[in-house]
């Protein structure tokens, strides 16, 4: 057991914390609204190798594992980077696994994204990077398909995500059958894990914004952060933040084990969970709750200013909700999780 980042991961964290803090942030996020894509920052990001870093070195990538990528995207979330990084990373890994990742995708000059919801009537709806990605991968029935077309028309939305519908007409079939579905679901669980890590970054900054404001803002002759009513709103958040970060890191750890062929278990009777799909789902629900709670409380601590466009917390507030529900209602995610956790008990036995 080791609950510290590796030395390599500490370096990765420092490098990308520097990058996102100089190239992205609330100011750039505002400029990138409503589309939610900062093309100048994306161009700079290409120089870091981040778009292809999650692909094996033997396939021309950076050789980073899922746990490493989680460290990168937490920083992106913390600095509210308007970049389709999670979607591009998980899709490049998926394309590499089915032998369809070209150099432009690895480099990030072609942006790729994942259709995270089942297509309806031949269209992948509300693809998270659909308004900026050239290539979108979807699971259509039992076929893994790739559509290569101009990005879709942006759907203006709550979190200023680059959402768009993408018709699948003319899509190329990359693979078919159970292996294709398994590859897609592995990618989707990686998406859950990295989106969870992004939400952890959002939670972290939202908490910091609330604490900073509570220390500076004075009412009744003293900082509002000296009032227990304010302190106790904020004091629940570090546990939510650290808990979500640990669970997300555990999901990434399980994902790397799964890719290496190691299976896990999911025994809620003994609270022993090492299965990747289970942990990915848990991480997204947990981080979504942490981010929505932290942004909600932090915004409230700001009083009326939190509601104003001028203050940064509203940027985090809206993205926290968007990333929490863009895949599905968390309650439905929980019922899906229950299907995984209660399989042995579903027939009424108590084995």
């Amino acid at each position, binding site marked *: *057991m080791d609950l510290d980042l590796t030395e390599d991961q500490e370096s990765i964290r420092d490098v990308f914390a520097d990058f996102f803090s100089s190239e992205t942030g609330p100011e750039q996020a505002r400029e990138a609204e409503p589309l939610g894509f900062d093309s100048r920052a994306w161009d700079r990001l290409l120089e870091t190798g981040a778009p292809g870093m999650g692909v094996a070195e033997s396939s021309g990538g950076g050789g980073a594992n899922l746990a490493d990528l989680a460290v990168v995207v937490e920083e992106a979330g913390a600095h509210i980077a308007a970049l389709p990084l999670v979607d591009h990373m998980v899709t490049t890994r998926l394309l590499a696994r089915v032998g369809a990742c070209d150099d432009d995708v690895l480099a990030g000059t072609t942006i790729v994204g994942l259709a995270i919801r089942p297509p309806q009537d031949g269209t992948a709806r509300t693809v998270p990077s659909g308004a900026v990605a050239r290539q979108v991968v979807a699971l259509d029935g039992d076929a893994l398909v790739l559509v290569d077309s101009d990005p879709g028309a942006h759907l203006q939305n709550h979190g200023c995500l680059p959402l768009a519908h993408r018709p699948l007409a003319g899509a190329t079939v990359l693979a078919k059958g159970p292996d294709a579905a398994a590859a897609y679901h592995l990618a989707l669980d990686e998406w859950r894990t990295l989106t969870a890590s992004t939400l952890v970054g959002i939670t972290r900054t939202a908490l910091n914004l609330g604490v900073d404001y509570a220390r500076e803002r004075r009412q009744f002759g003293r900082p509002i952060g000296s009032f*227990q009513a304010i302190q106790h709103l904020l*004091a629940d958040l*570090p546990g939510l933040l650290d808990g979500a970060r640990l669970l997300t890191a555990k999901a990434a750890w399980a994902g790397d084990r799964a890719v290496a062929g190691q299976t896990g278990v999911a025994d809620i*009777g003994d609270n022993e969970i090492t299965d990747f799909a289970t942990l990915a789902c848990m991480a997204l629900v947990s981080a979504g709750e942490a981010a929505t709670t932290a942004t909600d409380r932090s915004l409230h601590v700001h009083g009326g200013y939190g509601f104003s466009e001028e203050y940064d917390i509203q940027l985090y507030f809206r993205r926290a909700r968007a990333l929490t529900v863009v895949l599905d209602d968390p309650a439905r995610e929980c019922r899906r999780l229950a299907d995984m956790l209660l399989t042995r008990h579903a027939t009424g036995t108590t084995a």
Partner: protein
Amino acid sequence: MDFSLSPGAVDFRAAVKAFIAEHLTTEVVDQMHATGTFNDKTFNAALADAGLLAGAVPGYGDRDPIELYILFNELEKAGAPYDGLAVTMLVAGVVNAVGTDFHRNRVLQKLLTGRFNCCLGYSEPDHGSDVASITTKAVRDGDEWVITGQKMWTTMAHVSDWVILLTRTNPDVPRHKGLTMFLLPMDTPGIEVQPVPTMATERTNATFYDDVRVGDEWRLGEVDGGWAVMGVALAFERGVMGGTNPAVPLLRHVRDWAGGAASPDGGTMLQDPLLRERLARTAIANQVSQLLTLRAAWIAATGGLPGLEGSMAKLYATGRYQQAVGWFQEMAGAEGLLAFGVDDAAADGWIDYDARHAPVTTIYGGTTEINRNNVAERHLGLPRDR
């Protein structure tokens, strides 16, 4: 990060699980709830004899400190009587950290045999969360001290061999600076124990100290240095030694009940979508609680005192436990009100038991509000306001 246990820890956990499977009989569990004493000396002694207590003292010995976490986490998950053992091993850790050779020889070695118990004498009838204001006084008389006062919530006092007792030795200095801790043998003349029944099955006590004379060798830490000893004790208490995964047995009991319970809507309760969602949410909370606890254990294992991290684990875990208990009691309906031993009781009475027990978990061992104060002031750096 690596979330797998070391091979040694895996072996240790297997040994604890095997021990529980053999020794945690229905009789042991029934006895615990019937007497209200969540402590079983036969069980504790067998644990020690099996070699499983050697790593159970925080900060002591050369065993992997993760063993401490594993031991108490497994006992908690299994619903075993571990409250008395946890307090005893906590005191053993405090004795090891701040005690003299006399204390180590006379007390610590005995505690490691699993055949002796300790209890905590901090709170008083008028001083709970504001523990630094306690008034039980200790007055020096030559080589002895004379102690007079009353303690409250001295759980396990009726089965204990020693109490660590927080006293006031100097009323003329700021309240934190006039406190002294003693390690007091419970058979010292002048100590009286009275039971305090609770609304759950567990029993606690009030203890009375009437001109209790004790030698200076039983002082633990410096004269007027009792607050520093408290700091060590609290850092050991929160998080690492059980108390942060109470919803694991709850979830297991509810799941097993729901598979066989008819739903008024048809089918079984386990097919109810809302119950399934809530079982899943509880499973997530149980993982997060485990990880926050593991982090506290990890900090202890790498040489730190995880006081704040323990506060975070306790805040999170006890809040989620209470939420889950509320959900499941509502969803079990009238059968969820039925007690242990009553036919048709949902989950064999465990829902009623957990609903009775849950309220105390955000009170004892530091209330939710005290833990929030800790996190707000010491972790977030917000201005102190008391």
